């Protein structure tokens, strides 16, 4: 009973019923007020009030953030953490039947580390081995919850596309030509990548037509046998219906334009271009399509297709009207996206607000959740981070993080809890050592 109760507490505890007030903080956020010193009131997991002069409700937990900085939780638009059993279903060129949702690993320590870096939500993507990859979704870094509890409910799910080197190289050990026939996987060229995507959508359109005809017949009161449900085409049908966002891994300008043409031909939209290192060359076209660009700050030349990258990319795309963000693609870089944002001030001269937007409100827009997160405004989810110093300084450290009004990271208790954890570990190690017979006394096996 006690155990069940405890489990219940662990699973259901963080409902954020109590009221939390953060006072005297320098609040940096998108919104009418810009950067100012004030108070935030959090109730029932939402931001109830924010302003310079706010009444503190009776019985509230008050946190004095004098001298500290508060920003909305950071959102990483491109991450592969918290996934069990591989991020690439690399066996086929179209793996749209697979879904990250099936393999969420809520105990990946990278979640906690991301929290400790101020990240509160991340777009968990399938890998880039396939022209059309797997289905993706948005998670909140609700450390301690189960898989279901991690999911950003209400967010539109996505699908990963990938262009260029990765999908054409995967499965083609020697670039396609001369590869062992059993290993060769179509495509082996950029032309092939386009073809694979077009073929898949040809199929998806036919599939959609079959289902539409069936639905129409049912609506007329007929009872036909339903068509076979095909998971691979089901997700592409959702793309055609605008119910699933396309997040396309890409590098070069030519392939970006190619995908825009394909999307126009088949009547779907690309929600974000990911990495998009040559986005600055075709920013106007990206903006015209209505796609976002989620790029790296200053990471390039790690392969041929990444040679034309410039650190001004995020700034240039922003200036040309592309909703831009900076992502990590990496569980380590994920912990310091705040300094990634700061680089866009040095390269490209973005303002502090614009720079911060690259990792907060902009990724929220790109993921279609800007009505819920990405800024500190009344009615939004209480996903809040306190830094000890200016978050755009590389000397700043995250102090506390709330998601939905629940404090999930607290630097003080983390640091003070470490000796106890070490002690527990040592106890177990000693116990094991005592139980292991000495060398030589072992049973011959």
């Amino acid at each position, binding site marked *: 009973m006690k155990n069940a109760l405890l489990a219940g507490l662990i699973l259901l505890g963080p409902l954020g019923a109590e009221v939390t007030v953060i006072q005297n903080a320098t609040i940096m956020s998108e919104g009418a007020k810009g950067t100012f010193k004030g108070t935030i009131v959090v109730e029932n997991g939402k931001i109830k009030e924010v302003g310079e002069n706010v009444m503190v409700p009776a019985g509230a937990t008050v946190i004095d953030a004098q001298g500290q900085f508060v920003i909305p939780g950071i959102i990483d638009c491109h991450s592969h953490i918290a996934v069990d*059993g591989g991020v690439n279903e690399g066996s086929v060129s179209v793996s749209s039947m697979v879904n990250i949702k099936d393999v969420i690993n809520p105990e990946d320590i990278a979640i906690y580390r991301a929290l400790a870096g101020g990240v509160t939500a991340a777009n968990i993507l399938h890998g880039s081995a396939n022209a059309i990859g797997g289905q993706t979704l948005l998670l909140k870094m609700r450390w301690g919850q189960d898989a279901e509890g991690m999911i950003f409910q209400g967010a539109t799910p996505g699908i990963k596309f990938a262009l260029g080197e990765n999908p054409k190289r995967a499965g083609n050990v020697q670039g396609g030509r001369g590869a062992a026939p059993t290993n060769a996987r179509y495509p082996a060229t950029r032309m092939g990548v386009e073809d694979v995507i077009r073929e898949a959508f040809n199929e998806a359109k036919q599939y959609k037509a079959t289902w539409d005809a069936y639905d129409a017949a049912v609506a007329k009161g007929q009872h036909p046998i*339903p068509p076979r449900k095909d998971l691979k085409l089901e997700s592409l049908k959702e793309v055609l219906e605008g119910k699933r966002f396309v997040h396309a891994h890409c590098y070069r300008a030519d392939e970006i334009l190619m995908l825009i043409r394909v999307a126009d031909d088949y009547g779907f939209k690309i929600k974000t271009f990911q990495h998009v290192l040559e986005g600055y060359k075709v920013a106007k076209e990206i903006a015209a399509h209505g796609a976002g660009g989620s790029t790296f700050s200053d990471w390039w030349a790690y392969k041929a297709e990444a040679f034309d990258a410039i650190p001004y990319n995020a700034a240039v795309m922003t200036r040309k009207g592309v909703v831009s963000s900076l992502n990590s693609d990496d569980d380590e870089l994920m912990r310091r996206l705040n300094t990634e944002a700061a680089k866009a001030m040095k390269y490209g001269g973005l303002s502090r607000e614009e720079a911060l937007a690259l990792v907060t409100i902009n990724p929220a827009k790109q993921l279609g959740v800007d009505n819920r997160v990405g800024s500190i405004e009344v009615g939004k989810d209480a996903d809040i981070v306190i830094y000890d110093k200016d978050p755009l300084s590389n000397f700043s450290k995250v102090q506390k993080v709330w998601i939905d009004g629940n404090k999930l990271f607290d630097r003080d208790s983390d640091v003070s809890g470490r000796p106890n954890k070490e002690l527990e570990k040592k106890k177990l190690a000693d116990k094991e050592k005592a139980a292991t017979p000495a060398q030589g006394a072992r049973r011959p096996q």
Partner: protein
Amino acid sequence: MRNLLTALLVFCGCAAAAGNEAIAIRNAKIVTVSGPVINKGTVVVRNGLIQEVGENVQIPADAIVVDGEGMTVYPGLVDALSTWGMPGAAAGAARGGGRGAATTTAAAPAAPPARGPEDRPSTTSWIKAADEIQAGDKRIETARNAGFTTAAVWPTRGFFAGQGSLIDLLSGEKAGEMVLVPSLGQYISFTRAGGGGGMGGGFPSALMGMIAYVRQIYLDADHYQLVKDAYAKNPRGMQRPEYDRALEGVLESKRILLPANRWVEIDRMIHFAAELKQPAIYYGLREGFEDRSVKYLKDANATVLVSLKWPEKARDQDPEQEDPYRQMVLREKAPTTPAVLKKNGIKFALYSDGLDAPRDLQRAVKKAIDSGLSREDALRALTLSPAEIYGVQDRLGSIEKGKIANLVVTKGELFDDRTKIEFVLVDGNKYVPAPEVPTGGRGGGAAAATPNGVNR
């Protein structure tokens, strides 16, 4: 006569045919499992069935009488998930959670890699263990020497490995005589049969691909059934549905076995089974002790099979190497899983998971007992509970009149280090374990095999 018979048994270590004769074990302690322990009583066995059991039982005139003074009679042990008797099933092949990679004999001809679910990769859903059983498998005898009389034997290679069967551990008989239940359900694993996979190596390669594959198969099976029914009703003017043995195998399986070791996997698989609308049994359960696991299992009213292969430090591990805390906790707590499940009223049975040497099995069960499981509950988890889980509690799992005569007779308490198994009855056939011969080298599974093997 009796002496002669005993002598014969000792020498050849193999079965005495029961014929019509009865065997009566008298003056023995009888642990019935289903009822109270009979401190001094008699069990009469005839025609492979338990004819009588009780304190005051008339011993038939034609019975071979065994004086059970100082002996204890238990129901024969049941391995709830086993590969004993399955051809080419390497030890450990039945491991859960995708950890035990299938190895040797899956002689995969150079078939082109699967390009999607349509190619039915690593699927042999139509095969039944009952049709594959090799009565001469040495492990059958080894297991029997540890007190096992029955095993739920499963094909374990691939995503839809095939259908398990409940068999009695007879030696040298025709395999058909061993079968109690030909199909127990479908074994699902997230391990590819015979390796392969990866980039261009055939679908699926990642866990999410395997899950998607299983999901697609059940969607296909539903659709297949619909089309088949429609065709059966009115074939005229309708295209004939294509026969699909993979889907046939799935459709004829009345339950599924799903691997789940970590609490994350337990949660994941419970959701998955609900989505597939399939009655499921979860196997593995290394983290069954976790509060969360218990909560999920309770909420789902789940049935589980707990692996007896407790996580241990690798034998050849550098003594200086420090393991992660998490791993140490797992080693410490995993054997408490049966006790925790019992306390929380979760239906469970234990299974051998690649262990087959009597000593290893006995140690593994003892470890669960030392970690809080009562002896009675340990025994139940290896007798009546698996019988109930597979719906054969009317035939097996306890010592009751009319049930199958599967018994273990010991000197000392079962699962104790020094306990000697006097003999075992399987379907009323008496087997006397040969003394265990220590052998060198690893994989001592064959250590107790008698020289007079039963290979065909």
